[in-house]
């Protein structure tokens, strides 16, 4: 079972992100369970949502305390709550920021971990560019697909088409495609990137 925790703020589509992730996994024939951290939704307040993906039925109903991956939609949360709590040693981190992991002062966190699994993406700007709204959730999902390989970009696009219609869907797809390519490029340039080896092989 692969477990993902999404952190963000009310209004950033955190719960929607986890739900769409579960839809993308479902489209691949897998079992998935998405749920919010069950609070009153207030714009700007820290929000957490969860997604489990598995090849068999998911019965577990506890919150995700030891995630395989963490998606952080708002970097200001780094100063407010421990978004990395319980993150598995070989876990993935995707952070919405224009700055690098090093610039965000996270070098210490990455030190004993697999650095190629840490990535930042300017998802808010991608949302603004393609959808006209500063909502980072969809670009981050596509970026997560690129970073982890847990889900395919095509499945994220299917989830987008299920959630949105018309122009909004098209904009989100464009944002997702760009995000996916950007993360792939960053991974290509990473010194320990497995992709790099693949391409040279």
């Amino acid at each position, binding site marked *: 079972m692969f477990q993902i925790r999404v952190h963000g703020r009310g209004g950033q589509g955190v719960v929607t992100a986890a739900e769409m992730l579960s*839809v993308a996994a*479902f489209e691949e024939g897998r*079992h998935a369970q998405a*749920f*919010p951290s*069950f609070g009153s939704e207030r714009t700007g307040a820290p*929000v957490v949502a969860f997604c489990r993906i598995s090849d068999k039925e998911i019965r*577990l109903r*506890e919150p995700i305390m030891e995630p395989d991956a963490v998606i952080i939609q708002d970097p200001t949360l780094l100063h407010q709550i421990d978004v990395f709590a319980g993150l598995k040693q070989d876990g993935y981190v995707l952070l919405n920021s224009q700055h690098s992991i090093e610039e965000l002062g996270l070098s210490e966190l990455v030190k004993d971990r697999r650095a190629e699994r840490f990535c930042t993406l300017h998802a808010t700007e991608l949302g603004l560019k393609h959808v006209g709204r500063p909502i980072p959730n969809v670009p981050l999902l596509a970026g997560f697909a690129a970073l982890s390989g847990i889900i395919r970009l095509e499945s994220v696009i299917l989830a987008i088409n299920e959630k949105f219609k018309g122009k909004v869907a098209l904009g989100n797809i464009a944002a997702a495609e760009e995000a996916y390519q950007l993360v792939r490029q960053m991974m290509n340039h990473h010194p320990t990137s497995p992709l790099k080896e693949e391409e040279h092989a």
Partner: protein
Amino acid sequence: MLKQTEGSKAVAEAIGLCRPEVICAYPISPQTHIVEALGEMVKSGELAPCEFINVESEFAAMSVAIGASAAGARAYTATASQGLLFMAEAVYNASGLGLPIVMTVANRAIGAPINIWNDHSDSLSQRDSGWMQLFAETNQEAVDLHIQAFRLAEELSMPIMVCMDGFILTHAFERIDIPEQNQVDSYLPPFDPRQVLDPAEPVSIGAMVGPEAFMEVRYLAHAKQMQAIERIPQLAAEFKQVFGRDSGGLIRTYRIDDAETVIIAMGSVLGTIKDTVDEMREAGHKIGVLGIISYRPFPLDQVRAALKGCRRFLVLEKSLAVGMGGIVATDVRMAVSGTGLKGFTAIAGLGGRPITKASLHKLFRQAEVEALPPVTFLDLDWDVVNKQLERERQTRHSGPIAENVLHDKGIVSAKFG
């Protein structure tokens, strides 16, 4: 059709497939998404001729459901927590009058202290209201139980609450098989009421009944629930024939055959319990699970039979009879009276406290060696409790408990996220 969807949305679709005629509800978390979705379905015309009636309170919601049902309409509503308490007088009327209303209870704690999260206090507070109460383990079962509930309710002319864990199920996205309309139509016939208000043939529903007949009317309500004990497994079997899956029934056992210790629970926590039990089984522990689906009527004989081979049981419940202990546990103990079985109660998950596999592992291992007091409070912070108790010993003006406990926990206000 298989779908990845929200529990609330799936339940709304299931209700739609049951061809309701009157839906009336007042929104309250965590029930809101269900009635919002139904409101949209009625507005779009897809449920025509169904009417969605906006009401000013839960008391009105149940009152409208009573009126609609008495007039021969298939009536549905949904609520939770204080909403259920606010409609309580009408809840008793619906069952007292024998009206087959189906209501979803998106289980949530009751305040004060105000708390929007899940436990089973709300529907269990209406234990003796005369409503049947069926508890869903998964969102699939929530969908399926609603379809079975209309059938059973209308056959017996008694109302049913379908209880699903607030947020944990209502707000969870998961894989759900939404039935086809023709399947539901073949399982659930049109509403043919046993009693109906009809100007052409006037009757009175709700006559005053004095001491000469009240006991008989009451007994007949009990008799109907006893009939339900027979009918619930039959309807589940028939459901399987049409829909191809096991859903509903009175109880459900899991890895119980050679179990020395049996864990008993209701609702979605059974999933986490089963995962824990699987891990313990792998490590050689003889442990099994008994899920109770039908809380009212309570299947005394079936529970007794299921526990026959075990040595001890632990009832894990999301409810507390203050001043006594367990609520479900009391019924289970009644079921096994005279058998000499050793029973324990664990109160867990009140007000949405997560019930984790780690805590269950510890608890179940203690149960196995009978190292538990009769009533345990899972993951209770004793430091905070003792601090407040000491405060009350030290000073007369010890202040409001909720505020003190939050302060001692270092929390400014309830945590959202």
